[in-house]
């Protein structure tokens, strides 16, 4: 891993922690943007320039703008004062630990002999990368590509249907929370 790789990794980790531990969702969102940009940097370090740019365009340019939009529209304050308690964070840390503890040894066992940087250093020089990815997507993966476009279309339609105001609003159940409309 190069120097830049370490820099981006550190940023990504710090920002990831920021996402989880910021009380204000808007700060979480900004942290996530930083994290996503750091990931784009990591892709770049790994030689996937096209993906790096796509990452910026799709995640930073579209998805996170949408999230910010929603956050600003709803104008939410920090999470309500209710205390987290002690059990939940502990259990959550247990989750995190167990994910890492179960997967990492298996992966390490799988890959410890293989050195990454010795492999195919100049695989995607210049614009060969974009061209090669294009040929993969429009060649072997054409069906999946078309399907994913269909998924996007359905997503758009679904989002519109969901956020359209309906004439009949099914209110919260009796005794449920947030009774006022």
């Amino acid at each position: 891993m190069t120097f830049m790789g370490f820099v981006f990794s550190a940023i990504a980790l710090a920002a990831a922690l920021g996402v989880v531990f910021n009380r204000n969702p808007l700060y979480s969102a900004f942290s996530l943007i930083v994290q996503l940009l750091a990931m784009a940097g990591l892709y770049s370090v790994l030689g996937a320039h096209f993906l790096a740019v796509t990452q910026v365009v799709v995640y930073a340019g579209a998805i996170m703008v949408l999230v910010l939009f929603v956050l600003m529209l709803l104008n939410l304050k920090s999470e309500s004062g209710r205390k987290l308690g002690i059990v939940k964070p502990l259990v959550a840390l247990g989750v995190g630990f167990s994910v890492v503890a179960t997967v990492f040894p298996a992966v390490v066992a799988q890959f410890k002999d293989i050195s990454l940087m010795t492999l195919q250093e100049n695989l995607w020089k210049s614009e060969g990368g974009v061209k090669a990815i294009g040929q993969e997507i429009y060649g072997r993966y054409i069906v999946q590509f078309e399907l994913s476009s269909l998924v996007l279309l359905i997503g758009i339609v679904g989002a519109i249907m969901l956020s359209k105001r309906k004439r009949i609003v099914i209110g919260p159940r009796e005794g449920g929370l947030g009774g006022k409309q």
Partner: protein
Amino acid sequence: MSSIVTYIGLSLVLFAIGAVGVCIRRNAIVVFMCIEMMLNAVNLAFVAFSKLQGNLDGQVAVFFVMVIAAAESAIGLAVIISVFRSLVSVETSDAAQLKW
């Protein structure tokens, strides 16, 4: 440590942080963002594997994950907004009517 293990480790840790976030945060939008982060963690692993294998399958997979993430964000945020409309809250603990 210039091996793939570094990247996989980073990917795993990011994934775990995301998972923890999903578990402990109550704001649905933050939960949603944590899920995005987990997707990204997996993407990183994909790209690293792609580099390791010397082919582009991993990168293509990342591309598709991004597409799905975009669709997911559109739907997810729409859901959150419509939940907000009826509950006046986006906290997951408030949207707890679907139970026994």
